[in-house]
C-alpha cells in the first residue's frame, strides 16, 4: 500500500465519521450517604451524533435518571460525578463550574423533565416560563422574545399559541403542559435534547403527539437522549439503546440489535414483559407463577348467568363553577363467571367512576347494578354489606389502601370472614395460605406495607382481595404504577389465579397493551360513554369508532419479531 493510498483512506475515514456532539466514557456517579460512598452509576459510555437518538432503558433504581442528570451537571450536591471522558461539543465538561453548566444548559443541552405539572411554575404563564429561558441566556430583545415564544409553541404543536402563552400551567391539559415544557427546553435551539420519561403519565394519544414532536426534532438534526422504562416508546425513536440495571449497562447496541436480537437475559425478559395483543395466552415473565396460585379458591357462591350486570349507569358531578359534568353516562355491560372484561379509556373517560359505581362506593344517579343476579345498587348499604365479600377491589396505589398502622398479617386477617375462621390460629394459617397464592412467603406477615416493594404491595393487595373468596375482582389500574417486569409477574399471576379459581375480573386500565393481553372482552370509554365494545381481536383489528381508531393508532408499535426482520 502506497503512502498516498494510506493518506486517502484516512481522509475518507475523516469524512464518514459523524461529528460527535456528546462523548461519554466511563461515567460514574456516586452519592455520599452518611459519609459512605455509594456508586449508583458504574461506567456508562456512548457517543451521540447529530440527528441520533440514544435511549437509556431501565427500571426504577437502575440509575438512568441519575445518568441523564449528570450529563447536564444536575446530579446534585452530594453526587460525585467522575468520567474518563465527558465532552459536550468537544469541550471537556468534567471540570465545569456551576456557572459553566448553567451556560451549557438550555443553550447546548435542553432538558425535558418528567412531570410537567411540577416542573412548571404554577404562578407563571407558560409564555413567561419560556421567555425566562431565553432571557437567562440573553437571547434577543423583549419584542423578539415574545415572537419567539409564539413560534416555539406553534412548533411543538400547541394550538392557538397566542392564547396559550398567556395561560398558567393549571389551565392547560397534561399534553399541552408537556409540550410547553418541551418548548422551553428547546427555546435556544440546543442541538442536544435530554428527555427524561417525557411521556410517562400522559394519555396514549397525547404520548403519540409528544413522540411525533421528538421525531420531528430528530429529523431537523437534534440529538436526543431518551430516558424511559417503556420499551415501546423507545422502539419508536431510538437508534442506539443502553439497557441499565442497578447502575450498570448490561447491554448496548443499535435499536435493531437490542430489540430484535437481545443477548442479555435481562433485556430479553424486559422485551418479553411488554404486554400486547400478541402476548395473549402466554406468560410475560420468566419468573414462575407460584404453584399455590393453582389452588386458589373458587368463589364462595356458584351462580348461573352473568356475575355482574350493569345497566344504564349514570353519574354526574358538580364542578366548582356549578355546572354538571356527566362522568358516566348510560354505561351497560355484563361480566360472566371466569371472564375478564377490560375497560379502556384515557383520563377523564369515566372508567374509574364506573368502577366505583360498580363497587357501590358511589351512589348512582340512574341505572342498576346486579351482582350474582341479586339487586346490588338499589339496596341500602346495610343490606349490601352482606353481599360485599362477593366483589372486591385492587387499586392502583395499594399502599394508601392499607391502614398505615397495620402489618401484612393484620391486613389479611381483617379481610377474612369471621364466621369461617373463628380461631386466631385458623386466621393466621389462612393468611399464610393467601400469601402463598400470590407468591409471597411467611416472612412477609410481620412486615409493614411501607417496607415492601411496589410489586410485593400489589401482591398483598391481591391476596386481600382474594380473602373473602369473591366472584368478581375489580382491578382499577392495578398494574399501572409498576415497573414493566414486575407488571409482567403480576399479570401472569392474575391469569393463573383466574384459571384455577374461575374468578371474574373487571379490569380497568389506560394501557391498551395490558387490556388486550388480558381481556376476553373490551369496552372503550370516552367522555363517560362506551364508544365501542367487543372482543379484543375485533376491536384492535377492525375498530369501528373513530376514537378507537385514533387510540389504536397512538399505541407505539412494538413487535420484536418485526424489529428483528428490519435487520
Amino acid at each position, binding site marked *: 500500500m502506497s503512502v498516498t493510498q494510506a493518506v486517502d483512506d484516512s481522509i475518507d475515514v475523516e469524512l464518514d465519521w459523524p461529528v460527535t456532539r456528546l462523548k461519554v466514557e466511563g461515567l460514574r456517579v456516586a*452519592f455520599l*450517604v*452518611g*459519609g*459512605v460512598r*455509594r456508586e*449508583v452509576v458504574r461506567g456508562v459510555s456512548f457517543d451521540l451524533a447529530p440527528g441520533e437518538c440514544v435511549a437509556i432503558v431501565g427500571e*426504577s*433504581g*437502575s*440509575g*438512568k*435518571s*441519575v445518568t441523564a442528570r449528570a450529563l447536564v451537571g444536575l446530579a*446534585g450536591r452530594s453526587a460525585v460525578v467522575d468520567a474518563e471522558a465527558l465532552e459536550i461539543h468537544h469541550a471537556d465538561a468534567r471540570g465545569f463550574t456551576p456557572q459553566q453548566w448553567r451556560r451549557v444548559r438550555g443553550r447546548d443541552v435542553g432538558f425535558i423533565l*418528567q412531570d410537567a405539572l411540577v416542573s412548571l411554575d404554577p404562578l407563571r404563564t407558560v409564555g413567561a416560563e419560556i421567555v425566562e429561558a431565553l432571557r437567562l441566556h440573553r437571547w434577543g430583545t423583549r419584542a423578539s422574545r415574545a415572537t419567539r415564544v409564539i413560534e416555539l409553541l406553534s412548533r411543538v404543536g400547541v394550538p392557538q399559541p397566542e392564547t396559550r402563552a398567556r395561560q398558567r400551567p393549571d389551565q392547560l391539559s397534561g399534553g399541552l403542559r408537556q409540550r410547553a415544557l418541551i418548548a422551553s427546553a428547546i427555546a435556544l435551539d440546543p442541538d442536544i435534547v435530554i428527555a427524561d420519561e417525557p411521556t410517562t403519565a400522559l394519555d396514549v394519544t397525547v404520548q403519540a403527539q409528544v413522540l411525533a414532536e421528538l421525531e420531528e426534532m430528530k429529523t431537523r438534526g437534534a440529538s436526543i437522549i431518551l430516558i424511559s422504562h417503556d420499551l415501546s416508546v423507545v422502539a419508536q425513536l431510538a437508534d442506539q439503546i443502553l439497557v441499565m440495571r*442497578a447502575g450498570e449497562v448490561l447491554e448496548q447496541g443499535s435499536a435493531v440489535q437490542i430489540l430484535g436480537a437481545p443477548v442479555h437475559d435481562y433485556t430479553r425478559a424486559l422485551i418479553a414483559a411488554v404486554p400486547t395483543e400478541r402476548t395473549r395466552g402466554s406468560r410475560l415473565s420468566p419468573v414462575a407463577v407460584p404453584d399455590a396460585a393453582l389452588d386458589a379458591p373458587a368463589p364462595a357462591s356458584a351462580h348461573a348467568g352473568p356475575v355482574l350486570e350493569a345497566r344504564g349507569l349514570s353519574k354526574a358531578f358538580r364542578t366548582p363553577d356549578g355546572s354538571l359534568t356527566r362522568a358516566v353516562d348510560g354505561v351497560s355491560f355484563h361480566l360472566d363467571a371466569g371472564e375478564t372484561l377490560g375497560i379502556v379509556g384515557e383520563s377523564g373517560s369515566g372508567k374509574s367512576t364506573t368502577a366505583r359505581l360498580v*363497587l357501590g*362506593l358511589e351512589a348512582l344517579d340512574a341505572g342498576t347494578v346486579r351482582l350474582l343476579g341479586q339487586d346490588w345498587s338499589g339496596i341500602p348499604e346495610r343490606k*349490601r*354489606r*352482606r*353481599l*360485599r*365479600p362477593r*366483589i*372486591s*377491589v385492587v*387499586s392502583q*396505589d395499594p399502599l*394508601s*389502601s*392499607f*391502614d*398505615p*398502622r397495620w402489618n401484612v398479617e393484620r391486613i389479611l386477617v*381483617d*379481610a377474612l370472614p369471621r364466621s369461617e375462621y373463628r380461631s386466631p390460629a385458623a386466621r393466621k394459617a389462612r393468611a399464610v395460605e393467601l400469601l402463598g397464592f400470590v407468591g409471597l412467603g411467611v416472612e412477609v406477615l410481620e412486615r409493614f406495607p*411501607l417496607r415492601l416493594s411496589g410489586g410485593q404491595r400489589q401482591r398483598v393487595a391481591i391476596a*386481600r382481595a382474594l380473602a*373473602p373468596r369473591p366472584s368478581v375482582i375489580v382491578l382499577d389500574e392495578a398494574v399501572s404504577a409498576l415497573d414493566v417486569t414486575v407488571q409482567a409477574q403480576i399479570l401472569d399471576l392474575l391469569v393463573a389465579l383466574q384459571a384455577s379459581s374461575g374468578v371474574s375480573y373487571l379490569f380497568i386500565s389506560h394501557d391498551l397493551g395490558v387490556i388486550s393481553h388480558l381481556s376476553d372482552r373490551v369496552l372503550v370509554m370516552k367522555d363517560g360513554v362506551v364508544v365501542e365494545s367487543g372482543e379484543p381481536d375485533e376491536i384492535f383489528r377492525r375498530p369501528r369508532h373513530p376514537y378507537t381508531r385514533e387510540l389504536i393508532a397512538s399505541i407505539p408499535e412494538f413487535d420484536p419479531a418485526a424489529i428483528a426482520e428490519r435487520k
Partner: protein
Amino acid sequence: MTALRPAPLAVADARPGLLARLATGAARRPWGLYAAIAFVGLLALAAVAPQLLATHDPLALDYPHSLLAPSWTHWFGTDESGRDLYSRVIFGARESLLIGLGAAAVGIVLALVLGSLAALAIKPAAVVIDRFVEILFTFPALLLALLLIAISGPSATTEILAVGLGTAPGYARMIRGQILAAKGSAYVEAATALGHSRARIVLAHILPNALRPLVAVFALSVGQSIVWASSLSFLGLGVAPPSSEWGALLDAGRQYIVQAGWLIVVPGVVIVAVALAATTIGRHLQSHLERGEK
C-alpha cells in the same frame, strides 16, 4: 425520581463503622429533650414528696426576714412574711401540675367528644355540633374561662374546668379535621369495600389513625394549660393566696415588684420553664409519631 434514592439492597453493606455512628449520633443527641425530661422529673418529685426537696417550711412566718434577696440560706429569697420562696415554689408544684394536667385532660376529653361527634354523627346533629364548636372557637379562651369563674367562683376545680373549657374548641376542631381526613382515606374505603360495618371501621381504622397525634397534643396542652391557669391565678381568679400555686405566687409578688423583683421573676421563670419542657417533650413525641408513619 426513585433513581436518586439509594437502593435498599446496597444499604446493608454501606453501614458506617461503630465509631462513625457514635460520632454522628452524639452530634444529633437531643440534649434539649433530656433537659426537659429531667426538669419535669424533678417537678414530679416535688409534687409527690415536696419535703424531700424543700429547705424550709413553706408556711412558716418569719417577719424579721421578710423580703430578703436570694442567698445561700434562702435560694430564691423570701416573701413579705419571711416565707422561703424556694420551698413555696416546691410545695406549689403539686397544685400547679395538677391544675395543668387536669385542665389539659378536661380540654382534650371535651374536644374528643365534640370533635368526634362533629365528624362522625349523622348529618343534622353533626352540623349543629360543628357550629357550636365554631361559636365557642370565636370566643377568646380567657373570656370563656372568666365566664365560668364568674358563675361558680374561684377555686382549683373551677380553674381546671375553666382552662379546659377555654382550650377545648381549638383541639375539637383539630380532632374533627383528623377524623375527616381518616374517613376519606383509601384504607377506609377498602374496609368499606370488604363489607365491614361502620362501627367496626370507626373503631379499627378511623379513631386510631385520627388520634395518633393526640399524645403529643396532650403534652403540648399541659404546658399551655399551666400558663393559662397561672394567668387566671395572677388575675386573682384562681387558687386563693395561702396556697403557693405558681400563679398565686405571681399575684402575691406583684405588689412588691419594685422592692423584691425576685418574687415575680422566680415563679414566672418556673412557669415558662415548665411550659417549655412540656412543649419540647410534645414536639419530640410528635416528630417521633410522624416518623413512625413514614
